[in-house]
C-alpha cells in the first residue's frame, strides 16, 4: 500500500501524468475535458480550505463566498473592462484575498467557533448580495455571456481558446499553485500556521503572532479560492447565485475533510472523489444533501484523518526531504556563542523590578525583584502556589503585570505580547509539553527556530537558494541539538506516539532551537527517567556555556544541586531567599516556608 502511495505521489509519476493529461485533452470528448477542469478547480478549492481549516485550524463554513467573489470579479472584469484572462483571474484572486483579510479582523481576539459562525454568515451574505445587488451581479438571473472556453468565446490575445487549451492552462496554473503551496507549507510559515492551530499560547511563545498568522491564512485561503472562482467563471460562462449557496460551501468542506485535513495529497483525492461521485452515481446526486450531512456527522469518528490517513500518507512540515537531508554543507552549531563577560559590563540580562501580579484581588506576586545574568543557571523553588509559574508567565508575556517593570537588555518588555517577547530572545517551556503531536521530533524542534528565519513568504514558496540555505542551516542546528539531547534516533518519529520523557526533552530542545538569550524552564525534569534527566542537564549546561541565562523551576533538589549556580526561593509571591544551595538548606525562612513554623511552647 505505502509503495503504491509512494509511486502515486512521486514527482516524476505526477509529471508524466500531467503531460499525458495535457496531451490527451486534445483527443478525448469535450465533456471529459470539462470534468477534468472541474477536478482541477475543486483541487484548488480543497487546498484553499485545507490551508485555513486543516492547517491553521480556523473552520470555514462559507468558503463558497470566496469562490463566488472570485468568479463574479473575473467574469465582470473580463466582460466589462475587457481584461485578458491572466489579468482578470489574478485580480479576482486578489479581491477575494482582500475579502479574506477583512473577514479575519476579529480573528485575533475570539475563539474558533465564533469565527466558524462568522464564516457561515459570510457565505450567506455573499450569496444574498449576489441575489440582491442586481446592478452588479444580475440578481437571480445571473451574469450571462461570460467569455468561456466551452462555447469558444474566450480568447487570449487574439488566440481563441478551446476546452482542451483551457484545461492545459488551468492544469499549468494548478501545478504552479500546488508547487508554491507545498513549498510554503513546508517552510517556517507552514509550521507557524500549524502552531496556531495546535496551541495559540504555545505559538506565541515561539514568536508567532496568532492574529497576524490568522490574517495571513484567511487572505491566502481567500486568494486561492478566488483563483478557483475565476477559472470556474470562464469554464462555465454563466454565473448564478445558486452555484454559490450553502451547499457549495458544504461540498468544499466535505472534500477537504474526507480527503484528510492537513494533508496536501488528501485534498487531491477528496476533490477527485467528490467531483466524480455525483456524476457517476445517480443515487448519490439525488440524496446529496443528506449524504453530505451524514458524512459531516460521522467523518471524525469513522475516518479521523481522511483518505490520506487511510493511505498512511503524511505531509511533512519541513524541507528536510526536499533538500535531501542536511548534507555536510555547514558544521552544525546548535547555539550562538555569546560572550558572557562582555554582557556583564552592561548590567544584568534581565531585571525584574517590583513586579506585582493580581488576579481579581488575589495577589500571586507582590513586589518581586530579580536579576538574571548571562551564562548563569538560576533555580526558582518554593511551595506550590508560591508564584513561580506566574513569574515565568509574566516574563514571557502571557500575563500583563499589574505593576512593576521588566527590563530585558535595558528595555522594558513588561506587558508586551508573548510573540514579541519571544522574538526578542526569551524562550520558555511549559509544565505540560506543548508540542505539535502530529509532527515528527525534527519538525517540532525546527519550529523553535521560527524567530530566526529572515526569508519572506515569496522566497519560501519559490524555494529560492537563500530560503533553502536558511532551512538547511536551521536543520543543522536541530541535528546538533538532537545529538546533545539523545534524540537523533527519534528524529523521524511522530512525537505524540513517544514516551512522555522524550516529549519533554524535545520541548527543551525546541526552546534551545530558538537560540535564546534567556531560557525559562517550568519543571523540565518532572517525569524524566535518570538517563533522560542526564540529557536534560547536558542541554541546560550547553546553553549556559554559550552565554544563555537560564531560570529553572523544579522541586527536585538533587537535580538542581548539580546544575545551578544560584537559588531563588519564593513564598506567597515574595522572594524570601537568594544565594547558593547550601545556604538555602540552613536558612530559617526557607525551612519555615516548607515545613511550617515550630510552635514555641511554654511548658
Amino acid at each position, binding site marked *: 500500500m505505502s509503495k503504491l502511495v509512494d509511486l502515486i505521489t512521486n514527482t516524476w509519476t505526477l509529471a508524466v501524468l500531467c503531460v499525458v493529461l495535457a496531451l490527451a485533452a486534445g483527443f478525448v470528448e469535450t465533456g471529459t475535458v470539462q470534468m477534468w477542469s472541474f477536478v482541477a478547480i475543486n483541487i484548488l478549492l480543497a487546498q484553499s480550505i485545507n490551508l485555513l481549516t486543516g492547517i491553521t485550524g480556523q473552520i470555514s463554513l462559507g468558503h463558497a463566498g470566496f469562490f463566488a467573489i472570485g468568479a463574479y470579479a473575473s467574469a465582470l472584469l473580463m466582460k466589462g473592462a475587457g481584461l485578458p484572462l491572466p489579468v482578470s483571474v489574478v485580480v479576482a484572486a486578489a479581491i477575494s484575498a482582500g475579502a479574506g483579510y477583512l473577514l479575519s479582523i476579529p480573528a485575533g481576539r475570539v475563539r*474558533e467557533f465564533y469565527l466558524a459562525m462568522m464564516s457561515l454568515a459570510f457565505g450567506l451574505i455573499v450569496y444574498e448580495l449576489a441575489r440582491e445587488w442586481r446592478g452588479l451581479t444580475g440578481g437571480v438571473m445571473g451574469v450571462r455571456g461570460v467569455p468561456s472556453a466551452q462555447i469558444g468565446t474566450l480568447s487570449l490575445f487574439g488566440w481563441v481558446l478551446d476546452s482542451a487549451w483551457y484545461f492545459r492552462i488551468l492544469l499549468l496554473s494548478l501545478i504552479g499553485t500546488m508547487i508554491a503551496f507545498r513549498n510554503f507549507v513546508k517552510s517556517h510559515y507552514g509550521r507557524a500556521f500549524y502552531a496556531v492551530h495546535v496551541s495559540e499560547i504555545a505559538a506565541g511563545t515561539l514568536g508567532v503572532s496568532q492574529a497576524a498568522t490568522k490574517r495571513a491564512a484567511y487572505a491566502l485561503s481567500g486568494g486561492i479560492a478566488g483563483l478557483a472562482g475565476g477559472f470556474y467563471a470562464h469554464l462555465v460562462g454563466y454565473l448564478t447565485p445558486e452555484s454559490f449557496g450553502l451547499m457549495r460551501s458544504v461540498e468544499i468542506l466535505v472534500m477537504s475533510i474526507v480527503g484528510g485535513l492537513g494533508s496536501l495529497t488528501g485534498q487531491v483525492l477528496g476533490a477527485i472523489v467528490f467531483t466524480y461521485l455525483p456524476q457517476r452515481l445517480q443515487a448519490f446526486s439525488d440524496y446529496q444533501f443528506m449524504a453530505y450531512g451524514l458524512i459531516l456527522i460521522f467523518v471524525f469518528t469513522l475516518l479521523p484523518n481522511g483518505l490520506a490517513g487511510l493511505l498512511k500518507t503524511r505531509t511533512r512540515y519541513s524541507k528536510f526531504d526536499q533538500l535531501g537531508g542536511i548534507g555536510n554543507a555547514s558544521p552544525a552549531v546548535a547555539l550562538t556563542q555569546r560572550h558572557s563577560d562582555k554582557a556583564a559590563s552592561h548590567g544584568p540580562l534581565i531585571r525584574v523590578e517590583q513586579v506585582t501580579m493580581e488576579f481579581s484581588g488575589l495577589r500571586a506576586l507582590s513586589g518581586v525583584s530579580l536579576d538574571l545574568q548571562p551564562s548563569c543557571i538560576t533555580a526558582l523553588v518554593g511551595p506550590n502556589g508560591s508564584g513561580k509559574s506566574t513569574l515565568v508567565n509574566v516574563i514571557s508575556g502571557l500575563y500583563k503585570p499589574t505593576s512593576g517593570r521588566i527590563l530585558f537588555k535595558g528595555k522594558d518588555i513588561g506587558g508586551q505580547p508573548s510573540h514579541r517577547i519571544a522574538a526578542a530572545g526569551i524562550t520558555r517551556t511549559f509544565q505540560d509539553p506543548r508540542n505539535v503531536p502530529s509532527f515528527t521530533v525534527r519538525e517540532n524542534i525546527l519550529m523553535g527556530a521560527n524567530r530566526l528565519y529572515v526569508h519572506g513568504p515569496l522566497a519560501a514558496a519559490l524555494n529560492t537558494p537563500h530560503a533553502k540555505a536558511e532551512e538547511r542551516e536551521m536543520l543543522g542546528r536541530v541535528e546538533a541539538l538532537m545529538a546533545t539531547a539523545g534524540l537523533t534516533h527519534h528524529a523521524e518519529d511522530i512525537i505524540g506516539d513517544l514516551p512522555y520523557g522524550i516529549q519533554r526533552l524535545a520541548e527543551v530542545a525546541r526552546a534551545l532551537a530558538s537560540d535564546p538569550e534567556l531560557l525559562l524552564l517550568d519543571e523540565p525534569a518532572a517525569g524524566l527517567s535518570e538517563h533522560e534527566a542526564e540529557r536534560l542537564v547536558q542541554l541546560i549546561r550547553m546553553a549556559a556555556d554559550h552565554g544563555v541565562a537560564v531560570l529553572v523551576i523544579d522541586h527536585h533538589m538533587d537535580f538542581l544541586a548539580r546544575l545551578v549556580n544560584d537559588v531563588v526561593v519564593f513564598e506567597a509571591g515574595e522572594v524570601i531567599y537568594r544565594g547558593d544551595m547550601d545556604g538555602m538548606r540552613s536558612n530559617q525562612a526557607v525551612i519555615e516556608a516548607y515545613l511550617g513554623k515550630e510552635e514555641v511552647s511554654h511548658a
Partner: protein
Amino acid sequence: MDFLIQMIASGLSVGAVYALVGLGLNLTFWTTRVLNFGQGSVLMAGAMITAVLVARGCNVFLAVALSLVVSALILWVIEFVGVRPMLRIRGSMGWVVSTLGAGIFLQGSASWLFGTQAVAFPDVLFKSSDTIELLGAYISVQYIAVFVISVVIVGLMELFLRRSTWGYGVRAVAHDRELAALMGIPVRRVVVGSFLVSGLLAGAAGVLVAQVSGTVDPNFGLHLLILSFVATVVGGMGSAVGSLVGGLTLGVIEKLVGGYVSPAAAEMVAFVLLVAVLTIRPQGLFGKADTVKV
C-alpha cells in the same frame, strides 16, 4: 410615523424570537460548551411538521405539540451522535462540523420528504389580517402575540433556571462540569435535559417565526440561526438577559434599516454588527471575558 411604529413593532417581534432561539443555543452552550450549528434546521423542522400536519387535517394544537416533541427528540439525537462522541476531539472542530452536518441532513431530509417549495403556514394565533391600532399605526396582532409569547417563555426559562433544582444543576454544570459530577449532580441527565429543552425552544421559535412569515421551506432556519447567534454574541454568550436585549436590539435595527434603506442593507446589518462586536468587545454587552488558563 406610522411606518416607524410598524417597523419597530415587527422588529421587536422578530427580535424576541431571536432571543428565544438564542436562549436555546445558550442552554447547550452552558452545559457542554457546544453551540449547535444545526439549530436552524430544528426551527425549520418544528415549523415544517406543524404546517404539513395541519395541511393534512390535523388539529392545530395537536400539530404544534407533536412538532415540539419531535424538535426536542431531534436535539436528543444530535447530542447522542454529534456532540458526545466529539467532545473527545480537542478544540471545536469536531462538534462544529458534526452539528452542521446534522442540520444539513435535516434540510436534505425535508427537501426529500416535502419538496424544496415553500409550504403555507396555517394561522395558529389570530389571522394575519387582524390588526389593532397603536399610536395611529395599524399593527398585526400576530406580531404582538409572537412578541408576548416569546418574552414570556424567555422569562419563564430564566425563572426556571434560577429557582428549580434542574436549573441549579445546569448552572453547576456550566460552572464546572467535573466539580458538579463530584458533588453528586447527575451531569449526563442535566446535559440531556438541556438538549431536550433547547429543542423545545427551537421548535417553539420555529412555529412563532413561521406564523409571522407565513410560509416555511427547507432553507428556512439558517438565517434565523445566524441572526440569533449574532443576538447572543451582542448580548454576551452565556447571559439570558443579554440574549433578550441583543435580540430586540438586532430585530429593531434590522427592520429599520430594511424599511428605510434597503432589504439588501438589512442583510448586512447582522454581519456588520457581528464583526464589530467581536472586534471591539468579544464578550458582548453582558458577558464575562473569557479567561485563558495557561
